[in-house]
C-alpha cells in the first residue's frame, strides 16, 4: 500500500534509509524531467537529481511541511540547475547540441526535438513550466519558489505557456507541419 509523503518523511527522519529509496522512486522521474527541461541534457540532469536527493536527505530537518516535499525538492533542484547552467554557459551552443537530429528525423512529428527546442525558452519560463507541468505544483507553491505573489505567478505561467506555444508553432512551421 503506497504510503503518503508525510509517512515516508517521518520514517526517513527516524533513520529509515529504505524509506528514502521509496521517496526517490516517487520523485526521481519528475525531477529528472524537470532537470532535463532546465539544463537541456540528460546526463547533467541526472547528476543534478542525484545531488538534489543527497542534499535533501542531509537537510530533511529543514522541511517544515512534508506534504509539500515535491515543491521543496524542486526548489533544491532549481538551485542546482542554475549552478550547472552558470558553469557551462556559452560553452556549448544550441546548434552544436541538437540541431542536426532535429532536422534529420524521419517522421515530421518527431523531427521536433522538443527538449532542445525548449532550451530556447528563457530560464524563468522553463522553471514555471517544469513546476506546473512536470512537478504539478500549484500556484501557491510555485509562487513561493520563485518569490512572487500567486496572482503574479498566474500571469507568469500564462506568459510562459504563450511563449511555449509560439516556439512550438514556429518549429512546426519550419518543419512543415
Amino acid at each position, binding site marked *: 500500500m503506497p504510503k503518503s509523503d508525510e509517512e515516508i518523511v517521518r520514517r526517513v527522519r527516524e533513520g529509515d*534509509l529504505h524509506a528514502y529509496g521509496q521517496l526517490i522512486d516517487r520523485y526521481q522521474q519528475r525531477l529528472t524531467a524537470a532537470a532535463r*527541461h532546465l539544463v537541456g541534457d*540528460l546526463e547533467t540532469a541526472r547528476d543534478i537529481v542525484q545531488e538534489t*536527493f543527497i542534499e535533501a536527505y542531509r537537510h530533511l530537518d529543514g522541511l517544515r511541511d512534508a506534504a509539500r516535499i515535491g515543491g521543496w525538492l524542486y526548489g533544491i533542484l532549481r538551485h542546482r540547475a542554475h549552478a550547472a547552467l552558470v558553469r557551462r554557459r556559452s560553452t556549448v551552443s544550441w546548434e552544436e547540441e541538437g540541431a542536426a537530429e532535429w532536422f534529420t528525423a524521419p517522421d515530421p512529428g518527431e523531427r521536433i526535438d522538443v527538449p532542445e527546442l*525548449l532550451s530556447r525558452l528563457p530560464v524563468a519560463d522553463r522553471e514555471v513550466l517544469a513546476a506546473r507541468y512536470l512537478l504539478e505544483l500549484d500556484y501557491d507553491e510555485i509562487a513561493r519558489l520563485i518569490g512572487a505573489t500567486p496572482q503574479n505567478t498566474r500571469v507568469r505561467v500564462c506568459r510562459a*505557456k504563450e511563449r511555449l*506555444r509560439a516556439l512550438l508553432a514556429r518549429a512546426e512551421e519550419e518543419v512543415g507541419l
Partner: protein
Amino acid sequence: MKKFTPCPDWSELLSAYQDDALAIDDRERVEEHLGACAACRQALTLLDEDRSRLEGAYAHATGGTALRNRVLEELRMENTPSSQITLPASWLRWLVGFTGVTALASLALISFLLVGNTRTPMTIVPVDGNGQVVLDSVDDSGKINAQTGIPHNVYNGLDAAERSRQYLAYDAPAKVPAMVYMNRRDLILPPERVSGFSGNLDTHGRSPVASPNASWEDALLGYVGSKKGFFHASDAFQNNSANATYDFRMNRNYGIPGGIQMAYDVDYAFLVKNALQGARKAQQIVREHGGFIIDFAFNSDEGTLPYASIRGKVPADQADKALSAIEKLGQVRGLTIDGEDLTEQFKQQIDEANKQKEHAEKLEKLENRSRPRVAKNIEQERLRAEQRAAAAKRALLGLQAKHELVEFSASFIEDKPRERLHFGQVYAMTVASLKLLGLVLVGVVLLLALIGIIASPWWLWKYLRRKE
C-alpha cells in the same frame, strides 16, 4: 501553424482553467464562454497539446534504479556505523557549545574558590620562634598590597602622599595584618627619632638609591611590603644616623639608644559572652588610643570553647585609659605581667581604683553643689583621688616614666561551646559546598568534554563531507 489566439483578456483565465487554479465562479464563467467561443476552445486544446508534448518529451528522462542506488549508496557511506547511534547534528552542536560554556564557567568558579580560599576572614598571623610576627615579604606581582588592601599596580601608581593616606586608612586586620601593624608600630616613631637619616633612603623600597628629599614618613612607608626593603632601611639607619641601631628583627625593643622604652607582656584573660565581639571591641579601643594590633586570632571549632585573642601595643600615656576600657569588656579571669601572675593584685587594684573613682564621682557631685571655695577644695581632693586611681593602675603595670609603649595581649573566652551556627561555620560550610559543587561541575564538564572529543571528529568529518 497553430497560433494561440484566444479572445482578448481570456488567455490568463484559460491558462488558469487548464491548471485547475480558478475559483468556482471563474471556472463556471470560463466554461460558459468556452461553450460559445470556438477560438478559445481551440486555444485550450493547444494548451493541452503543448502540455502533453512537454510531458512526453521527458517521458524517458529518468534516472532509474541506478540513480536511486547511487544516492542510497552515497548516503550509506555517510551513515557510518558510529553515526547509526549518534544524535542529530544540531544536538551535537549544542553539546559542543554547552561543553565550552560549562568549562569556562567551571574554571571561573574554581578560580574563585581558590582565590577565595587564600583570603579567609580570620587569620592567625604567623609568628617566629620568638613569638614575633614574621616579616613576610609582600608579593608585588599584581596581588593585593598587604599594607593598603589595594592592588599593587594601583598602589605603585600613587604618589607618596596618597600612598601614605591609603596606608594609614587601611583597616583590615583580619586579612593580612602582620605587615600592617609592624609598620604602624614604626609610624609611632616620632619624626625627631629618625631625623638623623636624612637622605640615602629609597622611598619606594625597591633599591637603596639616594633620595635626599625623603621624609621620615615617606621612608618608612617606602619600605612597606618588602622584606628586602626593611633590611635596607636598617642599613640606612646604621649608615646615616648616629642613633641608628634600628633592627627590625629585634623588634621587642626598638633598639634605638635613648629611644622608645616599652613595658610588655601584659596578658589578660576575659570571660565573655561573645569572644569575637569582645576581641573586636578591644581592637577598636586600642586604635582609638593610638595603639595598634599585632595579631588577631579567633577559633570556634566545634566542641571547643570559642576563643579570641589579640595582641598589640598602646602608647604608655594612653595605656591606663585603653586598658581600663578593655578591662570592662568582660570578667577578668587572669592578668599576667612579664610572666608573673598578678590576678589577685589586679583585682585589688581594680577595687582600689574603683573605690577611688567612686570617691571622685561623689566629690564631683558635692563639688557642684558646694560654694566656690569649698568646691575648689573638693575639686583638688577629687583630682587627687583620680591620680591615686591612675597611679594604682600604673603601679600595677610597672609603668615608669621612660616607658612609651605597653605591649599587651588579651584573650576572650566564652564559657560554653556555641550551639548555633556562627558566621565562621556558615562560611566554612558554604565554601565546602561550593567546592563540592565545583567538583561535581568539573566531573560533568570532563564527561561532556569526553563525549565532545569522541563525537567531534565524526561531526567534523560529516561537516566536511557536506561541504564537498
